[in-house]
């Protein structure tokens, strides 16, 4: 009786798994990006940038459904398309649009690690032990150093002009004083000469 039951289980599982043999195929998609680990997106504090990553289904023979999700860094990176499920027709590409915003109070050099996961949306049929594929796109968004501030240059110029101005005034005063001192001396000398 036990043996008979075991056979039933064996036959049942076998029947379920045999169905899998006929439906094996290939899954392949790719994501293109201008940013990756080691090549970060650089933004100024408070700056916003729109950019896109591209889903490729160039060699597939059937349309591909991919779900995009920002799994890390959602405070600075958001998906902007109306749906986060993208249908990429066979042999084509599709852009995934994103917007990155760095907080205004972000410190220069501060890095925000962001990660976007792209998962193939796939449903299993009866008898399938199915697998899907997913790609995680990971990079940093870095706060840039602020551009050299204009007031610093103005202050430097101001200091230079003040120094030059003061120096000129001092020189003028000294020269005037010297000429004043000489004046009475010359007059006394001329009186003496007259007396003789």
């Amino acid at each position, binding site marked *: 009786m036990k043996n008979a*039951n*075991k*056979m*039933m*289980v*064996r*036959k*049942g*599982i*076998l029947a*379920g*798994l045999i169905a*899998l*043999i006929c439906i*094996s*195929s*290939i*899954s*392949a*998609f*790719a*994501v*293109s*990006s*201008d*940013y*990756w680990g080691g*090549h970060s997106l650089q933004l100024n504090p408070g700056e916003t940038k729109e950019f896109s990553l*591209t889903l*490729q289904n*160039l*060699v597939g023979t059937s349309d591909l459904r991919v779900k995009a999700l920002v799994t890390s860094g959602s405070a600075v990176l958001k998906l902007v398309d109306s749906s986060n499920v993208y249908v990429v027709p066979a042999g084509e590409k599709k852009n995934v649009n994103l917007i990155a915003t760095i907080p205004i109070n972000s410190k220069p050099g501060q890095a925000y690690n962001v990660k976007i*996961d792209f998962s*193939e949306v796939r*449903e*299993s*049929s*009866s*008898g*399938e*032990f*199915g*697998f*899907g*594929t*997913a*790609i*995680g*796109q*990971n990079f940093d968004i870095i706060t840039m150093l602020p551009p050299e501030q204009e007031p610093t240059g103005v202050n430097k*110029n*101001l200091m230079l*002009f003040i120094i*030059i*101005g003061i120096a*000129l005034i001092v020189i*003028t005063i000294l020269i*005037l004083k010297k*000429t004043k001192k000489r004046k009475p001396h010359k007059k006394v000398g*001329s009186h003496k000469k007259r007396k003789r």
Partner: protein
Amino acid sequence: MKKGKEFEGNKNKRVFIFIFLLLIGVIAFGYFTGFFGKITVLVTKNLGINITIGVPFINEVMNGTATMSLAQAPLSTSREINFTVYNVAGTQFLNDSTAKINITLIGGVGEVVRNQTGACTRYNSSANYATYTCNMTMWWFDGSGYWNISASILDNNSNAAYNSSTTLFVGATTGFEMSPVNLTWPGMGAGSINQTSDNDPMNLTNIGNQLVGNASGTSNISINATDLKGETNNLFMLYAENFSVWTATGGSPPIECDGGSAGNLSKNMFANTTSAVLPKGNYTIGDINTGREQLWYCLRIAGADLPSQAYSTLNMTPWTIKIY
């Protein structure tokens, strides 16, 4: 006479004061109008210009930096690169067949220099200027980053013109191909142990230009497993934790059944397959290690109480292989 001298002294003094006041005025004017900012910034640069009459000169390549992304494997990606040559003696003395473009990944280790002899043609020409367009082919495994473009041409007297001032930015392409996408097992009974799949290995192929994982054990290839529920009675299932995976097979018991590199896979959690690495490269050469990885699967134990029915991912999400 004295009056004349005094008058002369006062006159000098006035002139002197006038000049100083004028100077102060000019300086103040300069400051408040920013006039000095325009004339006091003096930049001295040493410019080395070699002018040799009759030798060609490439004065422009591509109008600056260009950007492109590569198509997934096994496709190639073509890119037109233009450059303009000036020849004072006339463009009729340029040797069109020597027009050439090389591109090299800056800082790239082990990267191929891309060049194609005969890929450049003259498409525009005047008395002294000739523009060439070159069709550069790149492949899915060419590295991401800045590629230096070197354009060159000879004239009929073998005088060379060379320009490498421009770069081409190539983005990252991340992806892999997986086959098969469904695993099968031979017939087994309740309580069976160490049953390996009969249609593995699962072949993973890098179809992009990014290295996935590294030899020191950082895999970046992970598996999210789910239970395989019974299709008739879903209260019974093959538990995700009872499966294991390894990058090799063989031995007794089979190595993929011995805990595996992903250990006991966890339900609804990505488990890193620590020994799996997907290097980038031209996998079409047939070398098993170039751009490829293989995964072998094992069902370590099937519950002794499992009833006879089909077990599948029908009522659960499929397992997911993720690279990052």
